[in-house]
């Protein structure tokens, strides 16, 4: 026969189980590091092509985004299959970045109508998604990373073009890479 539960005991069980389940968010540092390095390589690569070659289609380096997307999707699918739980915040974070991806594709499709000047919009979208992740997982470096992307938007309107190619790498480093490495180290420490 089952033990008769007192109301106080019921409450304690509920609290304990919720507490045990709380700290099980998936490590998303992989994505920040993957995309940080891809975008950094793209930005630096495009700059080098512009300065040291006569090749006029330097934007071709942005094709590296495609293997990045494929890698992210495959990694996400594998991690998802291995995970023992999916928390509400994991789902929210996943939707956050799916919305970013959808918005990114819409901007790219209509790039011509923006006269190909889409980087402020992409920085804004990346900043929003990074900020939201930072708030969801309560990780301040990512919140700062999101704000760095926002600052990047201002830079693109206020700074001369020849300075931007030096500013962009810093935006990527402090927007994605630094928070990504800090998150990775924190998760390793807590594991």
């Amino acid at each position, binding site marked *: 026969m*089952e*033990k008769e*539960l007192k*109301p*106080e*005991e*019921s*409450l304690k*069980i*509920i609290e*304990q*189980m*919720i507490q*045990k*389940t*709380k700290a*099980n968010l998936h490590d998303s540092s992989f994505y920040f590091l993957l995309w940080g390095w891809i975008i950094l390589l793209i930005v630096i690569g495009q700059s080098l092509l512009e300065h040291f070659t006569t090749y006029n289609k330097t934007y071709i380096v942005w094709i590296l985004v495609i293997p990045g997307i494929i890698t992210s999707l495959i990694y996400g699918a594998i991690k998802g*299959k*291995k995970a*023992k*739980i*999916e*928390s*509400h915040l*994991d*789902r929210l974070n996943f939707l956050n970045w799916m919305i970013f991806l959808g918005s990114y594709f819409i901007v790219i499709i209509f790039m011509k109508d923006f006269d190909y000047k889409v980087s402020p919009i992409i920085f804004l979208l990346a900043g929003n998604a990074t900020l939201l992740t930072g708030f969801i997982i309560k990780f301040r470096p990512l919140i700062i990373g999101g704000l760095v992307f926002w600052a990047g938007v201002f830079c693109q309107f206020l700074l001369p073009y020849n300075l931007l190619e030096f500013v962009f790498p810093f935006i990527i480093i402090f927007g994605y890479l630094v928070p990504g490495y800090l998150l990775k180290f924190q998760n390793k420490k807590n594991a």
Partner: protein
Amino acid sequence: MLKKLDPLLHSELRLAIMSILISVEKAEFTFIKEKTEATAGNLSVQITKLEEAGYITVEKGFKGKIPQTTCKITKTGINAFEQYVNDLKEYLKM
């Protein structure tokens, strides 16, 4: 007069299962077993009871060659849990 607490939820292990499942989108049997520290047999019995009541859904699959059972709380289960918590608050006010 105080409402009678839902007998399906007013049980140590079933309440623990529902408390875990209300906190997540879904959870594997092994995760629930780890957190509740229940035996596989007892956990299986209680999960079946909750599933028969419509409080949770149970999906059986494979992770490679290893069988995998994943549980998810239903809307009925969420409503029942919320009602249980509200009824509990009434009891605790006394």
